[in-house]
């Protein structure tokens, strides 16, 4: 019987090339540990416990009067907002003439297991806002919250509206019951009391598990195949390694904060129902009456649009804008789309109010 070999020689060639790329990779690219994620120059202007307040150095001669404080998420670190010069959220805002501060939550240890929402909202975030107000001699500042950082910022703007001139909520975690992501399903079935009692802080390993179930084959196989395929593309490789390093670096979440976050947001959904309390104070979303700019990514598989959008309708603000972008959770803040569309639109809105 005649054997038929229908394989395209190009396919074999590609496979050999792929194998060669894997072998050559260590010679061509840096190890993630060697990459410095601190991109835009900044000064550390305040440190409280493990948190740090970063002030980015200005890149323009003239600046808008109202400074902007970014409250980053509790998962991973703030570096994604300044991942590389061409895709840096922070750098773009600086170039548009804004005075940018960033709150780095730091790395909590076992000793911090009793830190709760009150400490983050009325402690660290409030101290940062007060510091910036003093430093810049302004009565109100603009606040941007990203992801879970927006949950904290939302609670803050409701409790301290007198300090916030403009509020920008980027992929905020607001309505846990409407969230359609895998994370939400896992959170709803979690015995969070037992977890906090026994292990204290939410360990990073658990976070990695939660992330690994999001598009497991695209994220777990395809992206690494693409990495080795493109090993000679310096720009691609640099971006890939930066994002990978950022993804692999997530601090633990303080136990009490985690307990309240899971219960009040995902399990009992108190925030959107105006039933949540922080440090004994009632969080009433109607008290958020300053201009609000909500940014939502249609393809967000970490915080679904249905979870974020209710904020727009629940606040007391008359001047409010809801923007939806055809991208994902990270794509909204660190991509060419964010540079060419998301940030210019935000800058225009903020400039008119700063």
């Amino acid at each position: 019987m005649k054997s038929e070999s229908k394989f395209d020689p190009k396919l074999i060639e590609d496979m050999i090339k792929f194998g060669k790329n894997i072998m050559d990779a260590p010679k061509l690219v840096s190890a993630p540990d060697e990459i410095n994620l601190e991109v835009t120059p900044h000064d550390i202007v305040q440190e409280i416990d493990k948190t740090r307040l970063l002030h980015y150095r200005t890149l323009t001669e003239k600046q808008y009067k109202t400074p902007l404080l970014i409250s980053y998420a509790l998962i991973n670190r703030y570096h994604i907002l300044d991942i590389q010069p061409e895709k840096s959220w922070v750098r773009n805002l600086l170039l548009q003439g804004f005075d940018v501060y960033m709150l780095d939550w730091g790395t909590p240890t076992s000793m911090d297991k009793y830190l709760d929402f009150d400490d983050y909202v009325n402690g660290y975030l409030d101290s940062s806002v007060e510091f910036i107000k003093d430093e810049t001699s302004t009565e109100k500042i603009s606040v941007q919250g990203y992801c879970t950082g927006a949950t904290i910022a939302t609670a803050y703007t409701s409790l301290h509206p007198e300090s916030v001139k403009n509020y920008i909520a980027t992929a905020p975690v607001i309505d846990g019951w409407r969230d359609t992501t895998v994370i939400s399903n896992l959170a709803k079935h979690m015995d969070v009391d037992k977890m906090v009692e026994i292990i204290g802080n939410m360990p990073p390993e658990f976070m990695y598990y939660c992330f690994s179930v999001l598009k497991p084959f695209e994220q777990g196989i395809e992206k690494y195949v693409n990495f080795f395929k493109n090993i000679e593309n310096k720009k691609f490789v640099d971006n890939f390694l930066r994002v990978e390093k950022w993804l692999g670096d997530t601090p633990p979440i303080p136990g009490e904060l985690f307990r309240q976050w899971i219960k009040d947001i995902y399990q009992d959904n108190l925030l959107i129902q105006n039933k949540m309390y922080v440090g004994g104070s009632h969080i009433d979303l109607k008290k958020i009456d300053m201009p609000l700019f909500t940014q939502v990514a249609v393809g967000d598989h970490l915080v679904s649009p249905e979870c974020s959008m209710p904020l727009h309708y629940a606040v007391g603000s008359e001047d409010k804008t809801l923007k939806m972008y055809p991208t994902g959770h990270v794509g909204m803040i660190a991509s060419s789309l964010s540079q060419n569309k998301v940030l210019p639109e935000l800058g225009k809105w903020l400039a008119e109010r700063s």
Partner: protein
Amino acid sequence: MESQSPKDITDYYKHLSLFWTDIIHLMASKPQALTSIGPMRAFASNSKKISTELIQINENLMEFNKLVTEYYKQLSETWSEAQKKVNLKAPDVPHDTEQMESFKRIWIDIFDNDYTELFDSEKFGENYGKLVSKELELTKHWNNISNVILQSANLPSKEEIDEVYKEIHALKKRVTKLEIELKKKRDAKSEGNIKNEK
């Protein structure tokens, strides 16, 4: 001879272990009481606690194994279903680069969709929640054993350290509140001085 169920066997060994631990403890504690400040004395008096924890760990492990089996069963069933769908959609072996890319795309899309559906399901969430809960119970038993050993060496237990953390946290909160009050008073005073100067 009557056949015994696995539960009867477990109960038998549980009883056997506790019996000998108790007896040895009672027999050993009297002469050891002579060296009542030594760590071995404390360790001997706590040995029953360790034994009980180990028995409970064993029981928990049986439950844990059931849940972890169900976990991998769900994963493997989803894999089989997804692979069947891939086979229906792309029955031919890819022969060139273009076909290979299409095949890979189909494979990843189907697998991602099916696994996302599984992770989003009630049955997965429920089993996963119980699995994590059981793991936590195992950790708790391990913590309890560690506490016994720490106490036998006159070191503070996890609960005692937690008490200290709690106290530090409360103190920090009080200090912060006092600092804010102080700042407010200072600000009010300096504002008053400015007004008086005017």
